[in-house]
């Protein structure tokens, strides 16, 4: 670069073409932006059918054809002039915008950087007119022929601004962005039929839905996001102070690795808003891991005066007058729907046989709670997973978990010495370790209970259990009587109507979580003081600050931390129900989360997030062998616990298959 010239720069007025091209750069960054403007215009024109054609990712051709109100010769000439619009007038202010367009900028901007051709006929008139604009040079309006409605063609986009061309991505990526943009608009306008063609190839199609309201919306969302989604989504309806929220929210079990598929529409306009991200996260956090995201499409309708749409050059963002209220409405509507859905979980597996393993729809926890409240002893046995370990039994745990894990992976309190002491788990003699079982629940109370461990045991990877005396009663419970544990990971139970398969880790994690929340509500989680306080080094000061800031809240969860020199904290007390746990790991995760979520989540939400993290650290792992008493206790506690249909990560905790379905699997029906 040359040294700055000492001469004073001259200020000049720019020519119109340059001005227009600069302005165009704001509105049209890539083909998808131009296409969005054209489709919005067609929608504003009241079209019932909109057909889009692209070539070379929209760079060579973007064409939009509609059957809307059309333009006469005079309107056509005005349409390509800057700041000419039919949609607002100077008597109205910008606070009452009911159309997608309002600035009168789109067509002139596109005309400035491409070859634009408009052909339009007003319905009822007998002549169509055409007009072209090439790199800002407007031609004359000429008579033409076409059906009622408008066709807008954009050829060689950015031919007049080659620099911009260089920044475009591959044709395929640009095509994708174009199609996505049309899909977004299609979601909000179920009454309009859409097609998108890439060259001659039809890449998207959505038929016109003539049903009204919710039904049309569902059908349209199914066409755009897939049946899978609508089959696994909850209807959202809520209204507060003139603000209406509608749409569909995916079940927590139907989740994605990113938040791409979260759509928000404000008065029919697709927008991107961080408010949505935060609200969705808060609403789903009881049900989903932090790195999983639900799929949803929400439609917010509010008085035009409540929202400013004129804040973004591509009209992709809006500003709410009362953002807090909008956020609150979204969070509470989602929460409400999720809670009501209770035990419903997604079933999006393609495999037909597994598809039959469906959650009983609508089996809400409420019904169960009434039916089966577990006894104290049962609960006790269930909680015993949790109790700190009495003995480091040296049992050669049949490790699905591999060396060491079975022993050390979880705070497994009672090494079932009786189990391991048995001659073997005979597949053929399922009664053999019955004696030990009864002791299972109690035996852990007895101190020094590590029996001599007969090295002679053999552990099959599945263990069957013979029905016991009170079996008939057990089977009547919704989740039935535990029959077997397979792969030290899943419990198989027989219920009145069929069979139930439970993921022990997922289920237990949910129970621990709910228990923590309960304990919290009751005034705090029991705290074990540490004989050896644990110093945890954190790599960033933000983590330490976040933890120390939240020290009082964390103490409510049983975790007492204090700052310790530079970049470290010392942990003095831990939640007793986590037992002998990875304190350092827990504290590091919490620090990260606090830093990350501080602004995203309200205090209460953040606290529940802490619960979830702790629950995950404190739950029985897959790979741990359970006694029948433990398994039944777990089933009973699940029945008594709300939301136990999913773990905190949104995975189902169990699946059930009724006899009908089993018979169908075996073609007996």
């Amino acid at each position: 670069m040359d040294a700055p010239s000492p001469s004073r720069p001259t200020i000049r007025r720019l020519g119109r073409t340059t001005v227009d091209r600069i302005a165009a750069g704001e509105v049209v960054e890539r083909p998808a932006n131009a296409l969005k403007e054209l489709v919005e215009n067609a929608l504003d024109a009241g079209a019932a059918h909109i057909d889009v054609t692209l070539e070379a990712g929209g760079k060579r051709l973007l064409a939009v054809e509609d059957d809307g109100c059309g333009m006469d010769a005079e309107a056509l000439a005005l349409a390509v002039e800057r700041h000419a619009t039919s949609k607002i007038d100077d008597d109205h202010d910008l606070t009452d915008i009911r159309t997608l367009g309002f600035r009168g900028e789109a067509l002139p901007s596109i005309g400035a950087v491409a070859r634009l051709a408009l052909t339009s006929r007003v319905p009822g008139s007998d002549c169509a007119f055409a007009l072209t604009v090439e790199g800002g040079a407007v031609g004359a309006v000429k008579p033409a022929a076409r059906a009622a409605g408008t066709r807008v063609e954009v050829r060689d986009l950015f031919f007049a601004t080659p620099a911009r061309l260089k920044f475009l991505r591959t044709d395929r990526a640009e095509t994708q962005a174009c199609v996505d943009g049309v899909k977004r608009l299609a979601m909000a306008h179920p009454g309009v039929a859409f097609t998108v063609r890439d060259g001659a190839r039809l890449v998207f199609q959505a038929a016109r839905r003539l049903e009204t309201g919710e039904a049309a919306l569902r059908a349209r969302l199914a066409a755009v996001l897939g049946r899978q989604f609508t089959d696994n989504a909850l209807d959202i309806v809520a209204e507060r102070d003139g603000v209406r929220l509608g749409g569909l929210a995916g079940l927590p079990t139907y989740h994605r690795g990113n938040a791409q598929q979260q759509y928000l529409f404000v008065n029919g306009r697709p927008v991107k808003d961080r408010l949505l991200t935060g609200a969705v996260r808060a609403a789903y956090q009881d049900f989903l891991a932090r790195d999983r995201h639900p799929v949803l499409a929400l439609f917010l309708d509010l008085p035009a005066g409540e929202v400013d749409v004129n804040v973004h050059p591509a009209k992709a963002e809006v500003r709410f007058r009362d953002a807090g209220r909008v956020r609150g409405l979204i969070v509470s509507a989602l929460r409400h729907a999720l809670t009501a859905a209770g035990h419903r979980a997604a079933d999006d597996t393609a495999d037909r046989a597994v598809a039959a393993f469906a959650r009983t729809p609508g089996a809400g926890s409420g019904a169960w709670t009434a039916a089966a409240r577990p006894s104290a002893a049962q609960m006790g046995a269930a909680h015993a997973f949790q109790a700190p370990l009495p003995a480091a039994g040296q049992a050669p745990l049949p490790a699905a978990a591999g060396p060491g894990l079975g022993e050390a992976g979880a705070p497994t309190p009672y090494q079932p010495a009786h189990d391991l002491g048995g001659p073997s788990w005979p597949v053929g003699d399922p009664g053999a370790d019955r004696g030990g079982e009864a002791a299972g629940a109690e035996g852990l109370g007895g101190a020094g209970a590590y029996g001599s461990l007969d090295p002679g045991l053999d552990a099959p990877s599945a263990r069957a259990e013979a029905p016991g005396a009170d079996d008939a009663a057990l089977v009547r419970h919704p989740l039935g009587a535990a029959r077997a544990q397979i792969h030290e990971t899943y419990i198989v139970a027989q219920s009145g109507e069929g069979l139930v398969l439970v993921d022990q880790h997922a289920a237990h994690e949910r129970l621990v979580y709910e228990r923590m929340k309960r304990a919290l509500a009751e005034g705090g989680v029991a705290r074990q003081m540490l004989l050896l306080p644990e110093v945890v080094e954190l790599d960033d000061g933000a983590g330490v600050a976040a933890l120390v800031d939240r020290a009082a809240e964390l103490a409510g969860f049983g975790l007492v931390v204090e700052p310790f020199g530079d970049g470290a904290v010392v942990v003095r007390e831990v939640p007793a129900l986590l037992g002998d746990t990875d304190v350092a790991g827990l504290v590091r995760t919490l620090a990260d989360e606090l830093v990350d979520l501080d602004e995203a989540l309200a205090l209460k939400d953040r606290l529940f997030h802490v619960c979830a993290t702790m629950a995950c650290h404190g739950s029985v792992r897959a790979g741990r062998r359970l006694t029948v008493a433990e398994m039944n206790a777990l089933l009973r506690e699940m029945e008594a616990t709300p939301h136990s249909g999913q773990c905190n990560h949104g995975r189902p905790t169990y699946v059930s298959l009724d006899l009908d379905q089993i018979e169908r699997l075996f073609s007996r029906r």
Partner: protein
Amino acid sequence: MKLTIERSSLLKSLGHVHSVVERRNTIPILSNVLLDAADGRLSLTATDLDLAIVEATEAHGIEPGATTVPAHTLYDIVRKLPDGAEVSLSLDDNQRLTIEAGRSSFKLACLPRDDFPSMTDGDLPHNFALPAVELKRLIDKTRFAISTEETRYYLNGIYLHVAQGADGPVLRAVATDGHRLAQADTVVPEGAAEMPGVIVPRKTVGEIRKLIDEFEGDVEVALSDTKIRFGFGQAVVTSKLIDGTFPDYSRVIPKGNEKELSLDCRAFANAVDRVSTISTDKSRAVKLSLGDDSITLSVTSPENGTATEELAAAYQAEAMDIGFNSRYLLDILGQVEGDTVAARLASPDAPTVVTDEADQAALYVLMPMRV
């Protein structure tokens, strides 16, 4: 290789070694047991690379040789053979081991002996003999407190070292999970005085504990900084040691606790067990209210209500409430041999020391819970 051996002695030895073999191994050779016949004896070896057990047993009709076969399969076969059977083993040219007893005959695929990892002892400069009963005592009194939390790997074993006791040096075993600590002392055997402090891994502790029950006399211990070997006559266990630093535990054993409590151990344990039934949550605290020569135990459960029980105790210090995890209390009381258990307390948020009247060489430290 060829030999004949009594079913019961083969079963016994296999029983000792095969539990070292992890059930799901990604390295096939580690699923196998090494059989080595020579000098009138069959020796069996199993290893998981951290730990190896070798056991020798008498056999006859030996043609020397060695091979390896799947440990659990061999064990199962031998277990199911009739009692009193004579078992003959022979290795054919195709590397298959034939096992015959009565009319039963099995052929097992083998892996060559040379593939079997050998655990070299290296140089084990410190050697001493420890009476089996003492080793058993050191293990039993401490192992319940071993941490299972892998991230604190240095707590995943028993710390065996020579320490300064009240009346001179002692051989001491210590285990802690950071919530409680257990310590047991014995006299320093000849040859142990100079040994380094070592952390014996949990799995090894379990294996040697099993062997002790069938053994009388002195266990031959040999160790270096990195390895330890326990000799039980015919059976020898060699193990790596945990490569870590055991925390300076002596700092957390309170010296100045002045409030002394003593009471009947069984009655105490039974009472703790009883009151804690009310709580569905085993991690809930039992609250001990200490008053004049009495102690009241109580547990409150938000779900079920409350339980209290009063016990006679010797206590003269100022009244105080303190909470403990009931499981931890029961673990410790389970180790106490005497009729009376004694505790020295300071305050509700400081560690409590528990001692056993019948075994003054053992000591337990328990950190309270907040109540």
